[in-house]
């Protein structure tokens, strides 16, 4: 019963929230559709935390997405032990960087009084969910090798079955607890997306790449 809820109902609820509330927030509260910058309050730790978190986690997310979208091609790519090992070691290295970056960002938010003052409970909930997701991912990568291949035959078909509106729950229920926590928590993050600063995931300032240059004049004396 619980597994039916977690793997056949909750993912749809999470997606419905993400799309429904996300669109509502975009059209009726557009100025909140971002994550507030805290760079002016503190920038040194932010650089290390933000860079170490964002670049690795985006690459890891893309790897999950590509394996889900092109399972056959991904299987061919990993059909050689050396390639498989290199990909797994690289993924684990990136995940360790992401964990370190996230840890720094959390410490920064907790230790810096000005930042703590502007942090909301939801910020903390999101950060803890992200920490749980990264930690379980590392645990899986290290103890249940090789996730990059068995993912193609367990979680990926489950995700496809969700898209076909015919969830194959048993693909997930036989997996170890840590994998199930990782999968369910992923959809918890999807559900949190429209309510939190996570919306910045789809708010990329791409126009900065071609905007005209700006000159900042700082107290020029005449």
């Amino acid at each position, binding site marked *: 019963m619980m597994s039916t809820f977690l793997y056949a109902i909750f993912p749809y609820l999470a997606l419905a929230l993400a799309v429904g509330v996300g669109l509502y927030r975009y059209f009726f509260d557009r100025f909140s559709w971002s994550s507030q910058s805290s760079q002016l309050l503190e*920038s040194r730790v932010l*650089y*290390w935390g933000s*860079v*170490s978190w964002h670049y*690795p986690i985006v690459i890891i997310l893309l790897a999950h997405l590509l394996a889900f979208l092109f399972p056959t091609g991904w*299987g*061919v790519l*990993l*059909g*050689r*032990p*050396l390639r*498989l*090992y290199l990909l*797994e*070691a*690289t993924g*684990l*290295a*990136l995940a*360790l*960087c992401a964990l*370190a970056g996230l840890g720094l960002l959390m410490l920064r938010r907790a230790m810096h009084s000005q930042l703590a003052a502007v942090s909301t409970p939801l910020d903390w909930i999101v950060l803890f969910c992200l920490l749980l997701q990264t930690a379980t991912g590392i645990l899986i990568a*290290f*103890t*249940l*090798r*090789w*996730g990059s*291949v*068995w993912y*193609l*035959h*367990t979680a990926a078909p489950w995700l496809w079955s969700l898209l076909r509106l015919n969830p*194959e729950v*048993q*693909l997930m229920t*036989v*997996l170890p607890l840590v994998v199930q926590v990782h999968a369910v928590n992923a959809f918890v993050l999807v559900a949190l997306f429209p309510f939190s600063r996570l919306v910045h995931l789809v708010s990329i300032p791409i126009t900065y790449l071609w905007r005209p240059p700006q000159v900042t004049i*700082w107290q020029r004396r005449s």
Partner: protein
Amino acid sequence: MVKGTSVSIAACLTLFAVFFLPLPLAAQESGQLGADREIAQLAEKGESLFAQKCTPCHAIGGGDRPTGPDLAGITERRERQWIRRFILDPQGIIADDPAARQLAEKYPMAMPDLGLSEAEAEALIAFLAMPTEEEHQAGEVTAPPAAAGTQAGDPRRGEALYIGSTPFSQGGAPCLACHGIAGHGLAGGASFGPDLSAAYASYGAEGMVSMLESMPFPSMEPIYLDHPLTAEESRDLTAFLAEVSGETPRVVGPLARDAGLGALFFFAVTLAFGWHRLRGVRRPLVEKMRNRIGGEPR
């Protein structure tokens, strides 16, 4: 008058006796038949479960195998409750029952949790109890189904299937996704499932082939249910496993080291890019202003 009444009562009693007394007997007989039919149906269900879940490791009347004892006449040797528990909770009974522990010592390949329900366990027991031992031995339900094991497979193709460079024809997961194997580079240290370097030594050719064809492990069932291995693929894999049998399994020690080195490289790149980041423009100005207004320089 009195005589006429007596005759009538006697006639009624006779009629009652003729028509109604046999009914309970008939009902008893038909009840017995129904129960027999029910047991037969249960045993039939048990037979298909046995073929699916048990034949990779157990025979009936075909003798003990390296993977498990012959189950012919098991219901006469053991109590039903004991058998039911062994089917439903093999690890539990091995932990606290001396007879079960003795069996586990004799057959080192631990019996997996088959994920069966109470009803399925009952069906299996009904099947195991149904035919007599003689009937089993006469070959009505005989041992290992896989005659395929007797033909030699191609170990090179088996190796390619194992590591995934040749995909399984029905799309099943390559073994290396979860199972470590000796002699296959760093990736040989897969750890989701048990290392299979010694699998051939434990199961033998016949057991290996039938196991690969039926995949009786709950965690593997959903993966291979719609993507089974062909008989030829099972033979090739078995030939490969026979080849590596006896080699020392690989332990993946360097993964943590290599990932750690990769992470250090990433931090070094981050440091290189961030070394003089914004120092020349914003920070000196901010610090200048802070100094002017007497704030703490940062």
